[in-house]
């Protein structure tokens, strides 16, 4: 059908006119692609606000699961973001330092490749690994610690990569100036190079935190979920993504509505981090 359409057009517009028409047609099509891709985003935000906002109340946000709230889930998500950052940021930044400052050898390029490979691991695999190691051998039960371990596996390579990229942007003259003053290389790296790359480091790290805040599959196999508030690192814990998944599967419409409320809170956390970071980095570039 499309073929016939084009042949009739071709007979009507010969040569250049037809080519100009085709040019316009594809320009419009590319614009349509953009619109089509943005529709889901707008629809997701719209639905989350329309269905989620009526749920929001002091009780919904602060009460525990037995009193109709998602307090434990919000608390759990914040705790797991903190715990994961505690493990993931130092390890990620230090690996990034090696890759950028000492990374001109075969070992470093091998580690860089492995880093890229780990970044693309399916998230459910990460969950299986954390379950098989931390849950089975260390905490003996689903636990907050296992969840943090799983999310760290996702976070370390992301932070390592952004650290490497931002450190490479620091001009060599700055390193040389410091070394020329007799400062040790380690001291130069930590007190001169890292602070110079501060903006890029913070941006990259915050985006990594936003990324892990929304991860669900690894948590599904590790933290277990709970309707009570945080009880310790070795105890089961709740988190927003997990709570959304559980509530979404319930047949009860009022529970499904709570899933949308929780989704709105999660979207607000993730998008707030993203937008804050983008705005901050844009201001930096402009200056």
């Amino acid at each position, binding site marked *: 059908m499309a073929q016939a359409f084009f042949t009739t057009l071709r007979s009507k517009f010969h040569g250049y006119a037809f*080519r*100009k028409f*085709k*040019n316009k047609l*594809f*320009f419009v099509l*590319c*614009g349509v*692609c*953009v619109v089509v*891709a*943005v529709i*889901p985003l707008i*629809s*997701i935000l719209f*639905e989350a606000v329309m269905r989620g906002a009526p749920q929001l109340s002091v009780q919904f946000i602060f009460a525990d699961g037995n009193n109709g709230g998602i307090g434990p889930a919000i608390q759990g998500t914040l705790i797991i973001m903190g715990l994961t950052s505690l493990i993931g940021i130092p*390890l990620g930044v*230090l*690996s990034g*330092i*090696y890759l950028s*400052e000492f990374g001109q050898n075969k*070992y470093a390029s091998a580690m860089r490749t*492995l880093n*890229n*490979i*780990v970044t*693309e*691991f*399916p*998230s*459910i*695999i990460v969950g*299986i*690994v954390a*379950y*098989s*190691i931390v849950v089975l051998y260390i905490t003996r039960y689903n636990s907050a610690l296992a969840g943090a371990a799983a999310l760290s596996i996702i976070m*370390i*390579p992301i932070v390592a990569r952004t650290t490497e990229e931002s450190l490479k942007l620091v001009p060599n003259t700055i390193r040389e100036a410091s070394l020329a003053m007799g400062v*040790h*290389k*380690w001291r130069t790296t930590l007190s001169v190079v890292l602070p110079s790359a501060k903006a890029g480091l913070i941006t990259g790290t915050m985006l990594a935190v*936003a990324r892990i805040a*929304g*991860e*669900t*599959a690894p948590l*599904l*196999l590790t933290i277990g979920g709970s309707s009570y508030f945080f009880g310790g690192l070795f105890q089961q814990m709740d988190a927003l*993504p997990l709570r*959304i*998944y559980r509530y*979404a599967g319930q047949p009860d419409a009022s529970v499904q509505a709570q899933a*949308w409320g929780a989704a709105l809170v*999660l*979207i607000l956390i*993730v998008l707030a981090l*993203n937008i804050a970071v*983008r705005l901050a980095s844009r201001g930096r570039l402009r200056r």
Partner: protein
Amino acid sequence: MIRKLQKKLKGDNLFKALVAIIAASALVIVLVTAYVLVTGSSLALQTYGINFLTGTQWNPVPGSENFGALPYILGTLVTSGIALLIGVPLSLGIAIFLVEMAPKTIRVPVSYLVELLAAVPSVIYGLWGIFVLRFWLLNNIEKPISAILGWIPIFSGRPFGLDIFSAGVILAIMIIPTVASVSREVISAVPNSIREGAYSIGATKWEVIRHWVLAYGRSGIFGAVILGLGRAVGETMAVTMIIGNASGPSAMPTSLFQTGQTMPSLIANGFFDAQSPVAASAYLGVGLILLVMSLLINIVAHVMVTRVFKVKGGAVE
């Protein structure tokens, strides 16, 4: 003086050794993952042998266990295939729009919106999928197609919304940011001299893009598509929520409008309910197949993408 020098060397070498060891964390993660999956799945792989890859049964009932992963391997490939069919043309359109057409005032907010699409957590895609997208697809696409083309096997069955087709559509939306942003980088890496040469022999803008820019960057764009495939293959939550979670022979993807199952969704659904050691081992076996598949896909993608950027260095610029 010499002692000072020694001290300095010691401090620096210590620091270098420390960060070098920490940089190996990626290696540790890869080794631990491989160890967990290989040792964990060996029981199932030994028990069922090649049948684990070709079998269609999935019976975890203790005493009569039988596990075959074929329906889930095919389910993963089919949903990812649908995602590519829908997502890749859209992503290429976006990339071309952003690099070649849009003025800067539009380019910045649009690329920003497309990046936000990547920031939405996958469980939210799943929630939106089962409460919004599912009904839209059911009423506007699946029912009409089923009414007209229902006699074709791949459109057979009564559409319900929670099926392979919906899973493919949601994956298509989720891979758009990846494919679009990588192909955008590839297209901007095409040297301007290529474009100018094409314009100088009288090509229209679209012809320049179609026959020169896309041709020049085809290896990178292919890489971007494969990278999108990797995302689609590994995606778990959104698919788990919308695909309908069939199991056993009925999970074979014979019709787009039937419930299905992918490898990640199978693990997400059943891993905890595995009661016997061989059942747990079977889930790890599926994990191993998934990991190998995603590793191969990503390695191919990285090779293809870096090839373009290497060529850029030696190009006529």
